[in-house]
């Protein structure tokens, strides 16, 4: 078994209200970052774990996302190995 660090990133699907992202976007505009076109607030979970391989670590991340970290009715997720 080897140690891995995975990142599970969860984002709202298109059309889900995300007032936090909208507020941040308008605050950035207030700070004169006029070129900002869109802001999205994702949730990122950094998880250290042990697994047989990089693929196995990613699989575990996907299982965690499906069972708990994301509500796939309203959210998408991506899993990557970061170390």
């Amino acid at each position, binding site marked *: 078994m080897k140690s891995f660090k995975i990142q599970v990133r969860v984002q709202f699907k298109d059309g889900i*209200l995300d007032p936090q992202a909208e507020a941040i976007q308008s605050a950035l505009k207030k700070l004169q970052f006029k070129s900002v076109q869109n802001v999205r607030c994702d949730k990122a979970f950094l998880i250290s774990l042990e697994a047989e391989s990089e693929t196995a670590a990613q699989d575990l991340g996907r299982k965690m996302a499906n069972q708990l970290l994301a509500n796939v009715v309203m959210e998408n997720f991506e899993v990557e190995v970061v170390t």
Partner: protein
Amino acid sequence: MSRHWAVVQFPGSNCDHDVLKVFQSLSKKYPEIEPVLHWHEDPIEKNVYEVIILPGGFSYGDYLRAGAIAKISQALNNLEEVIEAGAHVMGICNGFQILLETRLLPGYLQVNKSLKFISDTVSLKIEDEAFPWFTKKNKGEVVRYPIAHRFGNYQLSKIDKGEMKPVLKYQENPNGSIDGIAGVYRTLGKGSVFGLMPHPERAFFEDLRLTDGQPIWQNAVENLI
């Protein structure tokens, strides 16, 4: 035969005792009903409870997503089988959020359209019968129940609609829910699942000057006992 009616208590539940008090009041008149407060860490076996309420509140502080962590509690581990065996489950407010997380009801709740927490009393139309809560006779009636939520904007895709009946709709949509849906219901095996944002348990006692919630509990008594 005694009928155990349970209220599941999660860390952060805050409407558990409101429902329990309703059950205790009913049990004075109908001693067959035995109100039970059921701690979330204890598994629920089949055919033990006739009625199971997932109460309002902020289970696990709404961490991750409202209802997401409560869904994996021991008490709800076999919920589908428990319902199929004959239990009638009602999830109120946070309890509705938990039921959506279990996927036993379709759809999801997003933040209210106004982005505000809404605490109010609203008029609702009973759209359909829903055993044991609403009878055919109730169809078309308007009741007033309190609401108190920030994530009550119910949405679902067209594909999901076949699985359930919207049985409660807002007369004036307070939160942006699709078709003004306030509560959804489906049967499952011998039991049923009902999820709703409004609080019928907060409209039961005369001291609160709002008793529109009495019939829903009274119906359950008459239909089940």
